[in-house]
């Protein structure tokens, strides 16, 4: 399914770029200051970024794998 693969190839990197840009901008701008307790005891930023990255990567991997398998089956059907 070449159209689906093309769409996925275009959209997934765009989505990843948008998320990366949002993460970078968030680090630059800073967020609402956490409470003193949170500041003392928490090292949260990298945990949040890793969690968000895992979520989008797993969804992207599933989408990519479906697109690849669809292309393979279409190819077999065309033979």
């Amino acid at each position, binding site marked *: 399914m070449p159209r689906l693969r093309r769409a996925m190839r275009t959209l997934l990197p765009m989505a990843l770029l948008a*998320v990366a840009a949002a993460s970078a901008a968030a680090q630059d701008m800073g967020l609402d200051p*956490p409470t003193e307790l*949170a500041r003392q005891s928490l090292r*949260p930023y990298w*945990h949040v970024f890793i969690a968000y990255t895992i*979520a989008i990567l797993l969804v992207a991997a599933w989408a990519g794998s479906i697109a690849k398998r669809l292309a393979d089956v279409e190819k077999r059907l065309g033979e």
Partner: protein
Amino acid sequence: MATAGIRRAGLALTILGLAGLVLVYWLSFFWVSTEMTQGVAQRIFYVHVPAAWTSFLAFGLAALTSGMYLWLRDDRLDRAAVCAAEGGMVFATIMLTTGPLWGKIAWGTFWTWEPRLTFTLLMWFIFLGYFMVRSSTEDPEKGKRFAAVVAIVGALDIPFIHLSVVWFRSLHPQPVVLKPEGPTLPGDMLTLLLTSLTVFTVLFFGLFLLRYALEGLRSRVELSARATV
């Protein structure tokens, strides 16, 4: 609906879901207020909880279609079950990886064998078994029937996961939305959570439809291969 129509609907929902995911991330970083005690780490909530909800939805759908397959023996139901179970595994993996990242901040440990976490890991392994059982029999029809039973057993774990924090002493927080007295989250957090739940659900159904179209094409390939033998 024809395979082409299912694919188009799936692609449209997937694109909508991916755009929504970008919006959720944006809102999470720039709009929603920071929780008082946990600070920024609480933002993992907006990915972790929707992933949990979506995995329950997917595994529930897999169990429902599996049950109907056992009753009606319609291959389309088995195909829907395997697609839903695959999606459930993806979202359950997101839940099981983002949870420990939050737990390390909130509880000081990535993992603890408390009831909700243990039941959730059990559900993940049961559905891993679903795929193993499907491919472990020489007769594919038998594999489908055995796997359908495994899917139903796996989904029976979902109510235990939800209620385990009420029934047992648990480190995991109590429900903050699905509770008798109504949601106790502040307005902006609840709005973002509901947005994220919608986005994850749309994304799941988009990819589920694409995956279902793939299974439809695969069965067509198998049929044509059998016809030529």
